[in-house]
C-alpha cells in the first residue's frame, strides 16, 4: 500500500480539561489512511466521529497526539500554515449548510480556487465548470445555490471539495440529509471520483448499506476505535 498519506498517532481530544465537566471525546486514536482508499467511519451518536474528522481535516487540534499529512507533523504549524495545508490537501463535504447562498453553483465551486489565488480567471471558471459537469450539474451552474434541491446542493459541494484537487476528501454524513435515491447517487458519484482520481475518501455515515460498499469500515465507540468487532446496528 506504500506510505500512508495520513497518519494519526495517539490522538486524544479532551474538552474542558481540568474542570469538573471534563470529557475525553477521543482516546488514544491510532490510524493510517492511504491513497485511493474509500473509508467509512461509523459509530453511535456522540461517539466522537465528527470530532475525529475535524481533527483529521485540521479544523480542530487534538489535545495530545500527533497528526501527519504526507509525513509532515502538523503540530508545530500555526493557523495560517494549517489553513494553507487544509486548502491544498483536504476537501470537505458537510451534512448541512452546504453552500454559500450569495453565490451561484459555479461560483461556489470556484470559491476555494479564488480564496487560494486571489483573483478569478478563465481557467478557474473552466475548472469549476468541468467539476460541475463531473457531478452532472453543468446545466445548473448559474443557479443560485439555495435554489437547488438537497441532492443537487450536495453534489455542488462535492464539486467544490474537489476544486483544489485534494488528496483527502472528508465527508461528515454527506447523505444523512438526503432521500435514499439522492443518497445513493451522491455516494456513487463519490465512489466513481475516488476510483478515477485516486482521492482518499473518509466518510462518516450511519448508513450500513453504503458503508458496506466501502473499502474499510472504522468503528468509533466512546472515543475509541473498535477493532475487529462487528459493526453494531444502531
Amino acid at each position, binding site marked *: 500500500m506504500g506510505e500512508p498519506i495520513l497518519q494519526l498517532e495517539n490522538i486524544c481530544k479532551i474538552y474542558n480539561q481540568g474542570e469538573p465537566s471534563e470529557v475525553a471525546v477521543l482516546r488514544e486514536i491510532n490510524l493510517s489512511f492511504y491513497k485511493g482508499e474509500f473509508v467509512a467511519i461509523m459509530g453511535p451518536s456522540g461517539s466522537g466521529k465528527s470530532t475525529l474528522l475535524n481533527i483529521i481535516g485540521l479544523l480542530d487540534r487534538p489535545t495530545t497526539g500527533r497528526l501527519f499529512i504526507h509525513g509532515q507533523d502538523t503540530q508545530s504549524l500555526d493557523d495560517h500554515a494549517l489553513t494553507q495545508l487544509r486548502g491544498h490537501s483536504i476537501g470537505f463535504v458537510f451534512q448541512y449548510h452546504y453552500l454559500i447562498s450569495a453565490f451561484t453553483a459555479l461560483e461556489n465551486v470556484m470559491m476555494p480556487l479564488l480564496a487560494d489565488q486571489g483573483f*478569478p480567471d478563465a481557467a478557474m471558471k473552466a475548472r469549476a465548470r468541468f467539476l460541475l459537469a463531473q457531478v452532472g450539474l453543468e446545466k445548473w451552474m448559474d443557479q443560485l445555490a439555495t435554489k437547488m434541491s438537497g441532492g443537487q446542493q450536495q453534489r455542488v459541494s462535492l464539486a467544490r471539495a474537489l476544486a483544489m484537487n485534494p488528496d483527502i476528501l472528508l465527508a461528515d454524513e454527506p447523505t444523512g440529509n438526503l432521500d435514499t435515491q439522492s443518497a445513493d447517487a451522491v455516494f456513487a458519484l463519490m465512489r466513481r471520483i475516488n476510483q478515477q482520481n485516486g482521492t482518499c475518501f473518509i466518510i462518516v455515515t450511519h448508513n450500513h448499506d453504503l458503508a458496506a460498499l466501502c473499502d474499510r469500515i472504522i468503528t468509533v465507540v466512546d472515543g475509541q476505535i473498535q477493532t475487529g468487532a462487528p459493526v453494531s446496528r444502531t
Partner: protein
Amino acid sequence: MKYGLPFEWIVAVRFLYEGRLQTLFIIGGIAIGVGVIVFMSAMLAGLEANFLKRVLTTQPHIQVVAMDQVARPLRDPRQQTEDAIIQKPTQRVVSIDQWQSILQQLRAQPDIVTVSPTVAGSAFAIRGEASRSVTLTGIEPQTYFQIVKIPDYLVAGEARLASDMVMIGFELANDLGAKVGDKINVSSASGGRQVLTVSALLDFGNKGANQRSAFVTLRSAQSLLGMIGGVTTLDVTVQDIYAAEIIAQHIASANQVVADSWIKTNAQFFTAVQAQKSTNTLIRLFVGLSVAFGIAAVLVVSVIQRSKEVGILRAMGTTRGQIMRVFLLQGGLLGFAGSVGGALLGAIALYYWHALARQADGSELFPLILEQQLFVYTAVLATLTGLLAATAPAVRAAKLDPVVAIRG
C-alpha cells in the same frame, strides 16, 4: 463574477448585495447623517463667505487713526511744571502725526497689500433750498478703489474724481434733487466751502450710507475740512485677512497711532461664526459616532448570520486575514456608499434651501458653495469611519472557530 476584482471584494460585495434590505437601510441612515453634515458645512461656508465678502469689500482690513487725545499733562521740557489740562476735543477731526512716513513704512511691508490715506469729517451739502449733513471722505481714488470697490456700487455717472468733483450716495442725490453733472455746494464747520460737480451716484445697499456718503479728492477734503496736509485715516488691506489683528497690533505698537482690524471691529460676527463652527464640529463628531455604531451593529448581526458560511469558507482554505478583510471592506463600502448618498442628499437640500431662503430684499441668504473638497473629505472620512466601525465585527468573524461555526 468580475475577473478584475480580488476575492475579498467579490465576497464583500455579494454579502452586501444578498442582504440588500439591511444594506439599503444602513446606507440610508449614513446618507442622512452625512447629508446633514454636507448641508450644514456648505451653508456655513456660504454664510461665512457672504459675511466676509460683505465686510471685506466695503471695509479696509485695518484702519489706522490718530491716537485719542486723552487728557494728559503738558510738560515743559525745562521746568517740569504743569500747564493747563487739555480736554479731549469732541467732534474735531485729528490728523495722524507723521502720516507720510507711516504710509511709506506700511507700503514697504510685504504682508500689506494696499494703504490708502483718507480724510473724513462732517460737512453740509447744499443745493438750492435743500441742505443735508454728509460724511465727507477725501480719497486717493486709485488706492481707495482697491479697498472699497466704488465702481461696483455705481448706479449713474462715472467712478472718477477730479478736484472739483464729488461722488454721492443716490439717496442723498434724491434728497438734494441732484443728477450727475449737477453742481452742489459743500461747506464745513471749519469754514471751508466749495462748489462741486456730481460725477457719480452710488448705491451701497445700505440706506444710511446712501443718504450720507460724499467722496471727494483728498486735497478737496483737506481744504474743506481745514486740515491742509493732514489725513484722518490710513486704510489698509493685508495679504492674509486672518492675520489682520496681529498686523494691526504691530502697527499700533510701532507708531503713535490706533490701528483697528476688521476682526476687532466685527468681533461679534466673528465670535458668532466661531461658535457656529464649533457647534458644527460637535455635530460632525456625533453624526460620525452614530454612523459608526450603525455600521458596527449591522456588521455584528451579519457576522452572526453568516457564521456558518464563514466556517465553510475557513474549512475550504480561506485565511483569517481574508475573512477579516471581507468584513472590513463591507464597513468601508457601507461608509463610502452612505457618503455618496449623503453628498447627493446634502446637495439637493442645499439647492432647495438656497432657492427658498431669501433675505428681506429677495437676495440670496448665502451663496451656493459646493466645494469638491468637502465631498472628498466627507467620503474619505465616512469610508474610514466604516472601516473603523467594522474592526470589531471583522475581528470577531476572523476569530470564529470553524468547528463551532459548522456544528452550531
